[in-house]
């Protein structure tokens, strides 16, 4: 019990400072960097603001996310995130992934080269609420919307109808979408944490107008500066269909793995 109380205190403290918890309302401590193989690079720009970006996709899809903590009252912390994406170069690359200079220029193309990809930007905005629960758990609720500009001339037939991809890019075709989510972060053992989350994407007015995503993840914290995560993602999505149905529902379960590092 004597060991337990300090561990709990440190965990809650670190948790509320948002260490390794990008999905919560907590921001990183000033000056701390976190980065993973697949997770974005995060930087604590000040005590109540962090900035992040996806490094791999940044090469073809410049993006930046700002998380601002607005309120910390009692156990409640309220923040907002604002993310800006410029997906045009990535979508163009997906029309000819190997480049036109290599033989078979359309090999691995996920979007037909016949479509014109216009300059577009997408802006995602989320309000995030986090509250510690008993037993070292943190509950987070999210609600937000995304807007896209410049996609008016984008052909509806150019969608990539795959899990995770279709509903995230849908904002470019539809102009807007809504997103809601809940996360539960917790600790199973001294150096093993878990994350269970769910997200709902709603795209009113478009075929394939809903996706529900659920993630379960276990993380082994080897040190405050390195951790390994393993889990799964389940995606229940409504996708476009033709006669006799307008839509079709599909479920996919995908494995997740990530390595993350940090420095202060």
């Amino acid at each position, binding site marked *: 019990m004597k060991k337990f109380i300090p561990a709990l205190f440190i965990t809650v403290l670190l948790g509320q400072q948002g260490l390794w918890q990008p999905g919560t309302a907590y921001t990183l401590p000033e000056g701390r960097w976190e980065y993973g193989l697949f997770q974005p690079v995060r930087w604590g720009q000040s005590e109540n603001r962090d900035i992040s970006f996806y490094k791999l996709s940044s090469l073809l899809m410049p993006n930046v996310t700002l998380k601002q903590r607005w309120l910390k009252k009692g156990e409640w912390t309220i923040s907002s995130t604002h993310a800006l994406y410029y997906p045009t170069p990535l979508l163009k690359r997906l029309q000819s992934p190997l480049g036109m200079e290599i033989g078979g220029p359309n090999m691995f*193309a996920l979007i037909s080269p016949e*479509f014109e990809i216009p300059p577009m930007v997408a802006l995602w905005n989320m309000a995030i609420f986090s509250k510690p629960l008993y037993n070292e758990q943190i509950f987070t609720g999210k609600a937000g919307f995304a807007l896209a500009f410049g996609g008016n001339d984008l052909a509806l037939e150019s969608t990539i109808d795959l899990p995770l991809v279709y509903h995230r890019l849908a904002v470019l075709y539809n102009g807007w979408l809504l997103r809601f989510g809940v996360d539960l972060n917790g600790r199973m053992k001294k150096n093993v944490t878990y994350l269970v989350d769910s997200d709902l994407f709603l795209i009113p007015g478009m075929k394939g107008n809903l996706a529900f995503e659920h993630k379960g993840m276990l993380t082994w914290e080897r040190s405050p500066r390195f951790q390994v995560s393993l889990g799964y993602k389940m995606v229940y999505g409504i996708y476009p269909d*033709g006669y006799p149905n307008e839509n079709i529902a599909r479920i996919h*379960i995908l494995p997740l793995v990530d390595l993350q590092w940090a420095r202060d």
Partner: protein
Amino acid sequence: MNHCTVLYFELRNKYRLKPAAAITAAATLIINGNPPGGSWVTRNYCNKSWNCNKFKPMRKGTPLIIILTMIFFGCEPLVTTFDDIEEAVLYKAKNISGEGVVPQNSKIEVMAWNIRFAIGRLPFFGDSCGKRTIFTEDEVMDALDLIAAKVNELDPDIILFQEIDRESKRSAYIDQVQWLLDHTDLNYGAYASMWQAQVIPSDGIGGIDAGNAILSKWEIESAERIQLPLRGDQDALTLLFYLRRNVLKAKIAIPGQDDFYAVNTHSTAFATDDTKQKHIDTFYETLQDIDENGYVFISGGDLNSIPPGADSTDFCMEDMCSAESFHTDADGGPHREGSYFNNFVNEPMLLEPLYNAYTPAIPHQDAVTSSHMTHSTDGSAQWDRKLDYIFTNLSVVENSGHTHQNTLMLSDHAPVTATVVLP
């Protein structure tokens, strides 16, 4: 009820647990059993009236196996592969009309038609020097309307369709088998996919399900999909995402006929090795098997083979796209895939056994004439080769075989029809 359900109700009724708590407690006990020392569930809820020990714990690792099974088998495969013989997918029209009608004068009208997944002559990248992959719903619906109109005009009793799509991004995910059943007088269908994948990572093709279908006015009792050999001239990665062609064999319940079969196939178009020989052999053996059992059949499809004695075996120049060049080597090569019909010994005579053994819709001497050509890659030109056939072990009414060449803009293949006399 399984013991999980029994346990759930026991926990709900005896211990007045709320549903969520009962589910959690039941799951914990089922997975962990009653381990030494007890879990929080056993400590709180096991007592003399409820023997927790009756729940055998799962073996260590069982939950992990369940999770892994969900991950790897819980969802559709990226690419669908097939057994050598599988049941075909059966269909039924929304409204059944004229079911059970006895064929007039014991004759039935049969049609074979490659409908090019209902894009008419639009410039598809794969077969006509086109640059398009994905077609709009309006474009596909327009073509389907024209195809249905032609079917309704000719009023066949049984149709052998090739290149018919369902759940394909390129054709707006329209289930063309169901649509054609719902918009013609055909009542029943059987479908066998030759290309099925959640995504084809090339040219933006995306999700696809394309294949052969048999549509009939009479009920299809059973249907099987017979796998044809895969191409032997492709690398492993291409082969994984490439077509898996088939022979579709359906038993049709025509009133007064005990054992009537329809057999449909679409042989390889682009193989440069002897894969086509294997496809025609399998098709022929399927017909032979039916015939030797004393049953009757109508058969056909897009055999991607020219009739024996055809004027030309080389259509490379006719099919050539801009920036392509052929016949530049000393030996006359290279040749365009799909346009050259002399890739291996005896390829020009590939259909001779079929002509020798069975009755064709179009007699051999007519099949080599221009009025029975069924294919061209260029919609602005005329039909220039015959690739589509109907054969039967019954007799064909004299002069009833027709090649409907007035369908030039409906597909890159013309439909062939014939009137077959039932025994």
